[in-house]
């Protein structure tokens, strides 16, 4: 018997974060890109301070796991300031 279930997945996430300058953009981008559910990562620096950099991250994927993203940010000493944009999509999942 085939059962279908409704799933709502995050497709795009735009976040504002504050990171120490010691953590390079490449390292952070690679760490986030390493998350299974993230397909593309785009990071741009919007503000630079003596010790920190404010960055805007645009993540896309088929079903971004928000908790995993938060975990990687914390792991890299980066504080989430705000979630500025989010795109979710609804689809039917078939369960056998």
């Amino acid at each position, binding site marked *: 018997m085939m059962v279908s279930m409704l799933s709502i997945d995050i497709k795009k996430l735009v976040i504002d974060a*504050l*990171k*120490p300058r*010691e*953590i*390079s953009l490449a*390292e952070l981008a690679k760490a986030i890109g390493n998350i299974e559910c993230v397909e593309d990562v785009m990071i741009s620096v919007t503000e630079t*301070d003596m*010790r*920190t950099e404010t960055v805007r991250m645009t993540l896309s994927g088929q079903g971004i796991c928000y908790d995993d993203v938060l975990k990687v940010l*914390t*792991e*890299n*000493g*980066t*504080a989430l300031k705000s979630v500025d944009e989010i795109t979710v999509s609804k689809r039917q999942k078939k369960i056998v």
Partner: protein
Amino acid sequence: MVNIGDPRRRLEALKAKINKYTKIAEAGGLYRRYFVMNSFDGALAILGVIVAAYSTGNVSARVIINAGIGLAIATGISGFVGVYLSERAERAKKIKDIEHSIMMDINGSLLYRASKFTIIMLALIDGISPAVTISITILPFFFHEMLPNTFLLDYAMITAVLVNLTILALLGAFLGKISQTNVVKYGLMTLMIGIGVVVLLYYTGF
């Protein structure tokens, strides 16, 4: 079945991790600086012991070996503890400043781990580097102890001083290489300092 590739991969992963931590903690230059500074300290200290002992005119290899081992242990402990405590304090302050700036606790984060790793590495470099130069310098006295009739004490003295001066010259050359200037000039400069110490102690000994 034993997978032969595994240890190699693990070693590469460890190397990558060390490079990553070094880069994040901005410690590459510090490692080099601590290594040269403390190797130089150790080399000059043991050179002083050897030449001063020789100038008394009545010394045995065993005395120099014991003094050398004592010096290596003491400078090793002093270097390790001194750097561990001072770096820990400095880096704890830096972590606190960063936490204050980003308004988040970064305990356990990559930056925190890199910082802890760097403290240990710097302390080890500071403790081991003088001990290494001291140990290499006193090696000829061990040979003398093993072959007292073939390898005379005077030969051991001269060999030890020459080995030590070579270490000093190599340290200078290393500095020249780092600064991307004249390797020979830096090498000669540290060599002259060593020769200066030898001359000074030889003629002031009583």
